[in-house]
């Protein structure tokens, strides 16, 4: 479905920076595994953000430096991490009380597909041969106040990830507030998609041509 090049629009670091700009001072944030983790590097100076990792830590710090890894201090992606002064450890039921109970402000997740209604598919491609695995994704999308998606606009093969209706199994329905891609930032409002910002060199027409779902200006 049209062109998909890494040479146009933003690169994913720039997209992560765009997400970071939308995270307010004092926010409690959970970052999904992979690209969402980049966001932490771009929080503007003067803002303090507390990172939650669902395996039992509030106040996650940077990745552990080499030689200082503690196999019992990991994040949800099982990377060796550190904890900030003022951190807190807790067990899984308490950790998901924070998530399910609506205490976390923002969660940034990757996506296989997002629909124009804000439905998210990011846990399974529905491939019958794949080993099903869900982790905390379904808890995060229903519990966290604001769900941001960060993703390449299209798949490697050029298929639109922003779709009329998700064909992959849903993680949650009407859960995404905003989508950040290498081409644009798109708001989900009342089950419709609205362009918030276009990447340099990306026109609305180009974007619509490269997007299955209907976009609004």
């Amino acid at each position, binding site marked *: 479905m049209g062109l998909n090049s890494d040479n146009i629009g933003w690169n994913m670091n720039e997209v992560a920076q765009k997400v970071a700009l939308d995270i307010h*001072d*004092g926010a*409690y944030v959970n970052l999904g595994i992979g690209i969402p983790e980049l966001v932490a590097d771009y929080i503007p100076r*003067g*803002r*303090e953000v*507390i990172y*939650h990792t669902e395996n039992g*830590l*509030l*106040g996650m710090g940077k990745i552990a430096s080499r030689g200082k890894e503690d196999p019992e201090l990991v994040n949800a992606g099982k990377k060796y991490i550190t*904890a*900030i*002064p*003022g*951190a*807190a*450890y*807790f067990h899984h*039921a*308490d950790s*998901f*009380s*924070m*998530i*399910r*109970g*609506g*205490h*976390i402000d923002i969660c940034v997740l990757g996506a296989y597909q997002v629909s124009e209604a804000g439905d998210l598919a990011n846990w399974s491609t529905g491939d019958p041969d794949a080993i099903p695995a869900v982790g905390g994704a379904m808890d995060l999308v229903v*519990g966290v106040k604001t769900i941001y998606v960060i993703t390449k606009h299209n798949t490697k093969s050029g298929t639109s990830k922003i779709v009329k209706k998700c064909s992959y199994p849903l993680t949650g329905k009407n859960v995404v507030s905003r989508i950040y891609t290498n081409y644009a930032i798109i708001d989900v409002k009342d089950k419709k998609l609205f362009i918030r910002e276009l990447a340099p060199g990306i026109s609305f027409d180009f974007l619509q041509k490269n997007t299955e779902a209907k976009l609004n200006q």
Partner: protein
Amino acid sequence: MIDKVVKSAKEALAGIFDGATVMISGFGEAGSPVELIHALVDRDVKNLTVVSNNAGSGHVGLAALIENRQVKKIICSFPRTAISVVFPELYRNGEIDLELVPQGTLAERIRAGGAGIPAFYTRTSVNTSLSEKKEKRIFDKKEFVLEHAIKSDFSLVKCAVADKYGNLLYNKTARNFGPIMCMAAKTTIVQTKKVVKAGEINPEHVVTPGIFVSRILEVSHPADESKLVAENLKYDGIKF
């Protein structure tokens, strides 16, 4: 940057409104945030629904709030104490509503409110008058009662040590309802004996993680409420 420490009781209680649901920590006097409650007596807010294990003793703390006619309803497990005079009088006069909840069900309903669980089943109160009007359901051949979460607009909680992020430590059995009430509130207001620097509380020892706390007021020398009760003192506003 994050700093939840406020400078005055007035600032701590900002935004409390008529008709709000307010949770108040404590098991009797242990863990009762008496300075915050007295600051609430000083405020002109009424028709509060209070969630607390007891209903106050003597004429201070929660009893003073009730005596000042600010509470329309109390949800608690044990409104009667050896020296409770205020609640019994208003209750007998029909001037205050009571929702009586078994203590463990009260705790679990508050925890559910904080944990995003709208309702759960418990065996507590099956076959008693307290579950007469409640929905029942059989699991594994036993009957259980459906109980609903309780959330609050504000929780007033007493702790021992806090940092600017809102990480809390409690003192002994004064912990009681504090941690779960912090979880169940839209705005959690904590009075602490001591504020320490971030990092001074060992992250392994934190009882309430800061995410559950909105505002912290340092009250270095909190009154011993049981002494105020024993001395039959009466709090009736700032003149106390």
